[in-house]
């Protein structure tokens, strides 16, 4: 690779890094990247999801990025027929694009202990 090409690559890398720095994580754990899918960070821990209420717009594509802390929790949205196992030690991404406004309950569907029944939340889809 000649010097000019190396400089071009370096400039491209710097520009890409600058784009990433535009990303910001707000108080609810939403990471917003201009022009990209919104990534929503969610922690799954006995016996709560944080956050446990997610608001998205109809037809918006979001990526739910789960980090399980203490168990292979489950994530299940029955009305959307979407589910995933959330293994500790890795980020599990669930992509969804709700096409209809409303409230959609989700729950842990891997039995995780005496508070398992309370481990749930909802996705609020606005117009």
């Amino acid at each position: 690779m000649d010097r000019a090409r190396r400089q071009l690559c370096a400039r491209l890398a710097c520009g890409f890094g600058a784009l990433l720095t535009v990303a910001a994580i707000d108080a609810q754990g939403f990471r917003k990247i201009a022009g990209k899918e919104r990534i929503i960070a969610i922690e799954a821990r006995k016996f709560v999801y944080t956050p446990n209420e997610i608001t998205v717009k109809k037809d918006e594509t979001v990526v739910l990025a789960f980090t399980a802390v203490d168990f292979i929790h489950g994530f299940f949205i029955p009305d959307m027929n979407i589910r995933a196992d959330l293994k500790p030690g890795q980020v599990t991404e669930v992509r969804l694009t709700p096409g209809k406004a409303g409230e959609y309950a989700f729950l842990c569907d891997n039995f995780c202990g005496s508070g398992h029944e309370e481990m749930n939340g909802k996705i609020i889809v606005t117009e």
Partner: protein
Amino acid sequence: MDRRSFMKLTAIGGGAVFMSGLYGHAPAAAAGNTPAPYDDFYFVQLSDVHWGYSGGANPDALNTFRKAVATVNALEVQPDFIIFTGDLTHTTDDPKERRQRMAAFKEIAAGLKVKSVRFIPGEHDASLDNGAAFKENFGPSNYTFEHKGVHFIALDNVSDPGARIGDTQLEWLKNDLDKQAKDARIVVFTHRPLFDLVPKWDWATRDGDKAIALLMPYSNVTVFYGHIHQEHHHMTGRIAHHAAKSLIFPLPAPGSQEKRTPLPWDPALPNKGLGFREVEAQAGNDYKLTEFPVTRT
């Protein structure tokens, strides 16, 4: 005196002996079949004892199970056998405590007059250790047995925390069913419902549809399960599914509210919504269900 003779006598006497029970009929799965000769028997189903639970939903938690054992022991004719359909104990993260709860449960269950007692696990017993403690105490979590012309199958849909029966067990079920005549009388015991009752309350089995598909070619199948802490009846095709009451606290009607929180204890009506059932095998694939309260006084 056998069960049939006793029932005839109670019918003659106005049935007063069973006045405290509520009667129901499991529908015949194969309508139109000529009633086959049958050997008279009945069994008792107890479910969801949750031994070790403490909380406001049942302030009498230390006594409810013992009272139910006394009520079963006081039945005029003792059942041929007793089945516990899971959640024998309330879950705990501590493996030692889990075993202590199982030991205490077994000690109380040992007070049953009938010594033919069978158990299957619930998710509270088995999901945190893949059924290890349950198997140490009660043996295999899935099995079959024959009783007076009926083929009984105990299915484990809880040792997997994700509520899967699993391919290995489904293969085992298929092999077992392959040996049965298509019109064999088959009764299945599970903890969770095999069908999607209320998935948003986790009242389902993730691969339950596969078990139902295996059972569907058989014309005389009935399923008894627990998990939902109330009497409930449902048909999937010609297969009848019957949920039993609990011996710890009742839960709301399926899907009737946002969350499946226990119904509050009513001090004026203690043990309301709790109880056990008799299942009397009758001709064909008919099962007469009789619901009993925890105590009959």
